[in-house]
């Protein structure tokens, strides 16, 4: 727990990396329905934020606004003190690591090609790419030589997910976005990867935004938990304080995760 307290102290001093100010997102063409509204949130350097919510609460959309896979309908969203709409979108995305649900590895690329995609796009010299590949593979606990020439289909789900993380880390981005990265795994592998991720996030300092519908995962990995419901932020708390929340949505999550018995009726 002491590491968390330290992390919290850092948050207070850390610089703001991502800032949502009254952001709204409506589905283009269906103006009547907003997916997200009134979103204001400051995400500080080296913080791990968990966006927690049920399916359809808008958490994935919120993540995609950050690397502009979706564009805010109104409000302001800054990444590194610059509004995302002013960023060159290609530059913005190459500075942000992205790990997705179901991994999204390219089936026609080898593991090495997959992992080294962004450094390659950024025209790193071949030698440096080679070194970096070995480095990130070791970070995620896989032997670089053994996996370099394999294709994603030859790997297990857990291995693919590790590759997904390695790919996101390859160009050493300051920001890491993770969309239910461990969602598709069996419980044992999931727990294993969560532990590894925790160890990893201590080794490499990244501002991380993690989308999850699993409260245990949020409490385990995050330094701050942001609870979303129907497109709005309904609560924001440190993992310790989250369990003290008494909003119905928060209690429902606790009950479903069997962390506290009995939901608010």
């Amino acid at each position, binding site marked *: 727990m002491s590491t968390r307290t330290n992390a919290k102290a850092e948050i207070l001093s850390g610089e703001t990396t991502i800032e949502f100010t009254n952001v709204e997102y409506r589905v283009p063409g269906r103006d009547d329905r907003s997916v997200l509204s009134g979103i204001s949130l400051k995400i500080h350097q080296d913080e791990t934020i968990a966006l927690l919510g049920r399916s359809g609460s808008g958490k994935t959309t919120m993540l995609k606004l950050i*690397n502009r*896979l979706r564009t805010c309908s109104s409000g302001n969203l800054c990444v590194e003190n610059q509004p995302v709409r002013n960023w060159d*979108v*290609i*530059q*913005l*995305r*190459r500075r*942000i690591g*992205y790990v*997705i*649900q*179901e991994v*999204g*590895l*390219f*089936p*026609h690329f080898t593991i090495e090609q997959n992992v080294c*995609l*962004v450094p390659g*796009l950024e025209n790193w010299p071949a030698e440096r790419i080679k070194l970096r590949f070995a480095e990130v593979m070791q970070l995620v606990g896989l032997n670089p030589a053994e996996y370099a020439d394999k*294709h994603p*289909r030859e790997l297990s789900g857990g291995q693919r997910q590790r590759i997904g993380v390695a*790919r996101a880390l390859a160009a050493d981005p300051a920001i890491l*976005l993770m969309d239910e990265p461990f969602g598709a795994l069996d419980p044992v592998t999931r727990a294993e990867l969560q532990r590894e991720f925790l160890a990893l996030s201590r080794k490499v300092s990244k501002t991380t935004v993690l989308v999850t519908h699993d409260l245990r995962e949020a409490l385990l990995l995050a330094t701050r938990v942001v609870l979303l419901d129907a497109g709005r932020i309904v609560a924001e708390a440190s993992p310790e304080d989250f369990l003290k929340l008494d909003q119905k949505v928060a209690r429902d999550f606790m009950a479903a995760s069997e962390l506290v018995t009995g939901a608010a009726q």
Partner: protein
Amino acid sequence: MNVWQFFARHRAEILSATHEHLSLVLISMAIAVAIGVPLGLALVTHPRWRAAALAVASIFQTIPSLALFGFLIPLPFLGGIGPRTAIIALVLYALLPILRNTYVGLTGIDPAIVEAAEAMGMTERQILFRVRLPLATSFILAGIRTATVITIGVATIAAAIGAGGLGTFIFRGVAMVSDAVILAGAIPAALLALLADFLLGWLERRLRVAG
């Protein structure tokens, strides 16, 4: 005279007609691929033209082949009697399956993969050539295979406008009311179609990317 006797007696003639036939098909297919695949690629980045391009390609397919050959004869530059006119008609026929499969193959890949590519900061062009195209290869090849088989069949009609090929025997056999002569054109044409289907099918399986 039975068909085997006819084959034996006219072996050289049948071989040269097969050769002619094959040249018609190969030249037409090369042109159709050279137009259809880049056009399909262009439609991915210019979706506004998609409906129009596919509609035009479909229209050519709805024209009965004999009529299409007939329509082309009086046209200046393109038309006239002979292989050139036949090749133009065959290209128009082959275009739709190639164009359609190219477009559908390129746009039909898993959206999660395209989104991952976008999220990695790949440009639209990089996504097209480094992700969409390699993943669509076997699908595009399936279109080329369909088009090739169709073209081998339709090319027999090219004999009607003096383009030669195996259709020569078929038309002659019809005029002579001789099954043997018809079969001298039909059997090699069918064998060519089967062979092309088999070879391209094999290539298609080889190039398929397992998910």
